[in-house]
């Protein structure tokens, strides 16, 4: 029953696939129930957002926006020589393009507000990333990041110290304490044999790592695999397959609409839009609730190449597709009934010291056992993210393969070999992570197996230290199964239809640093205006004083220091009278002209009239009285006159 007059909507197969039914994000039923992301703000952290676009403007949130490249509040993209700064606008259109405006297309969460943080169009530092991740974090609910370190198959990089701190701070203090939701694209390095576990944003436990599948549900040529991937959604594939239709900028070669948006860049905003739909029906979902619901509702589908494995908790995961395809209907219905009661727990097992550095080839397995007693202090029972931090040296980093086995035997390829990575420095405390053991018991023996698959005759790798960190909840395996059943029961949609709602705590009041900054140009303008005002005031005062002096000298000093200006015929002739009247007199200039026909000040009837009124109330025609505070008028005669 959903119809829009946007000309490209019929081509937005990812929203409603008529050619291959089912191969879309299943969102129309959610829209039919008025779930469109209303009340939620999504911010695109990218190269800017053309917020004047017809498809963006009505939903644009200037309050959530900022330009960190130019340091002003307007994230409008700047045209560049490569015609390349359309990226953020395209992502924004996928999320919140306005429907029924007869223009281009429709966003997944078309009722949400969309903000932009321009940060990718200039030099970028750790501190700038940190600012971006927390910018307006009480306004922006979801941060959509379709970018990351180079996907060249040889880079190992991610958020640095400040970026990590900002991500952590965002999930703790952002969104009134429910936690900012960070959605990141998993990477386009498939052709370079890259793996998203070498991308620190994808590895981070604070992010939702989203991969791409094409219209046929397969991993596209550009996509990367990794153990830290949470889920996938649709994007473009090879040339024979359709890409994502979305809003585009209209600068340079842009037409305002494109049919060619693709890559994992195009997948992450769709996920961000679906999360916005979840937050509309349940605004108090925490950042961990969102991750849990994705794990519980993502759907595994038939794809033999995906190598699906079902873990001990019953969740299927693939290094290619994470826990499966995101489904808007399932996400929203699960969000509606979700109760967040899980305490987050972490347990750190430190292993190995420099003194015990071992040759990787000689020590393929390290076996820490985590007992119930070990976990008692933290309360951790079931796993979410498992992180392994490694300090290892090797003359050719790409020759190393790292596998982590959870106590259940679930294997995660946390460090895939990369043929192009010839870095001679190894891993300097790099943290790999996996989500493949989600919901499994934390107790038992973990195995880290490192293999040197290189051709070098003498294996030269050394493992200096490694650390296992378990993140999870106090839920037991039974709790997990109960939750699975509860969420599955909600999939009929009955809770969406019944006006059912669980209570939501109000959240914390967390003050935000005043983000408004005065740009140099604004500052210069203000200074100029200020100078002009001061100059004009001085001129005006001088003019008044001079005219007063002239009047005083003519009147022979009979009225002291403040003669009435309208007494001066000369002043009237010079045109200064009108300006000086409101300051000292109580009459409208027009009235003065009409009533004060005589230039002789002493006999002017206005002065005694006004001064004699003890209980004075401002008459309509008295301009001075209207402008001035009443008490001023009740002061002494001298003050009344001047």
């Amino acid at each position: 029953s959903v119809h829009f007059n946007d000309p490209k909507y019929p081509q937005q197969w990812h929203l409603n696939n008529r050619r291959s039914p089912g191969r879309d994000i299943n969102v129309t039923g959610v829209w039919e129930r008025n779930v469109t992301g209303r009340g939620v703000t999504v911010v695109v952290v990218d190269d800017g957002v053309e917020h004047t676009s017809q498809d963006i403007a009505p939903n644009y949130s200037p309050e959530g926006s900022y330009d960190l490249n130019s340091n002003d509040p307007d994230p409008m993209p700047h045209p560049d020589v490569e015609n390349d700064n359309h990226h953020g606008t395209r992502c924004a259109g996928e999320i919140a393009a306005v429907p029924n405006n007869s223009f281009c297309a429709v966003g997944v969460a078309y009722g949400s507000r969309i903000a932009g943080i321009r940060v990718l169009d200039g030099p970028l530092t750790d501190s700038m990333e940190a600012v971006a991740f927390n910018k307006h974090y009480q306004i922006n609910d979801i941060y959509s990041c379709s970018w990351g370190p180079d996907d060249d198959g040889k880079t190992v990089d991610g958020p640095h110290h400040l970026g990590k701190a900002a991500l952590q701070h965002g999930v703790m203090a952002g969104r009134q304490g429910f936690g900012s939701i960070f959605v990141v694209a998993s990477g386009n390095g498939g052709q370079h044999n890259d793996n998203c576990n070498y991308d620190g944003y994808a590895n981070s436990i604070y992010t939702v790592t989203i991969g791409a599948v094409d219209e046929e549900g397969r991993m596209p040529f550009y996509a990367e695999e990794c153990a830290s991937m949470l889920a996938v959604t649709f994007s473009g594939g090879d040339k024979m397959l359709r890409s994502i239709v979305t809003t585009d900028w209209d600068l340079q070669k842009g037409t305002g609409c494109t049919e060619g948006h693709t890559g994992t860049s195009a997948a992450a905003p769709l996920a961000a839009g679906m999360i916005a739909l979840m937050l509309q029906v349940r605004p108090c979902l925490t950042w961990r609730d969102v991750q849990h619901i994705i794990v519980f509702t993502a759907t595994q589908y038939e794809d033999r190449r995906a190598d699906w494995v079902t873990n001990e908790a019953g969740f299927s995961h693939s290094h290619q597709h994470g826990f499966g395809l995101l489904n808007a209907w399932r996400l929203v219905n699960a969000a509606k009934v979700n109760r967040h009661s899980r305490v987050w727990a972490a347990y750190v097992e430190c292993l190995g010291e420099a003194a015990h550095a071992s040759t990787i080839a000689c020590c393929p397995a390290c076996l820490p056992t985590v007992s119930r007693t070990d976990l008692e202090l933290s309360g951790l029972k079931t796993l979410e993210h498992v992180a392994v931090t490694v300090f290892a040296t090797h003359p050719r980093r790409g020759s190393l393969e790292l596998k982590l086995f959870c106590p259940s035997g679930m294997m995660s390829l946390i460090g895939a070999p990369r043929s192009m990575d010839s870095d001679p420095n190894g891993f300097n405390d790099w943290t790999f992570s996996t989500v493949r053991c989600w919901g499994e018991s934390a107790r038992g023996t973990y195995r880290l197996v490192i293999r040197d698959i290189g051709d070098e005759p003498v294996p030269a790798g050394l493992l200096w230290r490694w650390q296992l960190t378990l993140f999870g909840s106090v839920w037991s395996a039974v709790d997990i199964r109960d939750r699975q059943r509860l969420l599955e029961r909600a999939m009929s949609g009955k809770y969406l239809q019944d006006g059912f709602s669980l209570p939501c705590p109000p959240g914390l009041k967390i003050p935000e640093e005043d983000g408004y900054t005065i740009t140099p140009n604004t500052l210069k303008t203000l200074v100029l205006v200020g100078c002009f005002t001061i100059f004009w005031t001085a001129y005006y005062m001088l003019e008044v004083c001079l005219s007063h002096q002239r009047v005083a000298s003519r009147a022979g000093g009979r009225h002291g220091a403040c003669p009435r200006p309208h007494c001066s015929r000369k002043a009237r002739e010079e045109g200064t009278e009108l300006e000086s009247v409101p300051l000292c007199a109580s009459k409208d200039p027009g009235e003065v002209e009409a009533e004060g026909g005589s230039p002789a000040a002493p006999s002017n009837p206005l002065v005694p009239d006004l001064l004699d009124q003890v209980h004075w109330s401002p008459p309509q025609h008295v301009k001075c009285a209207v402008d001035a505070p009443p008490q001023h008028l009740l002061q002494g005669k001298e003050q009344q006159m001047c």
Partner: protein
Amino acid sequence: LTGTEGPAALSPGGLSWAVHLRSPEGEGKEETLEQQAEALAQAAGLVNAGRIGELHGHYLFVQPAGPKQDQQGEAIRQQAEAVLAGHEAVHWHSEQRLLKRAKR
């Protein structure tokens, strides 16, 4: 940055450091931190560009604007590193380097 100028505007292509100051005890902590940051930046020959976003106690110090030569830059770096490394209020500091990030 919460200051009036971003890092690029204050010191285009210049050196900059992120500094994490130890939180002082008692009331008026934020003011004390601000004052401490100002004094420290001055001692290091740098300009305090303000707090880094929402990160409490984190400040960005930048090279003062103006014409520079490579040798001057190195001298500024050495002075800044020496001051920041030796100051007891500095919990952590790091010179800011350009990151390479790609749209996907």
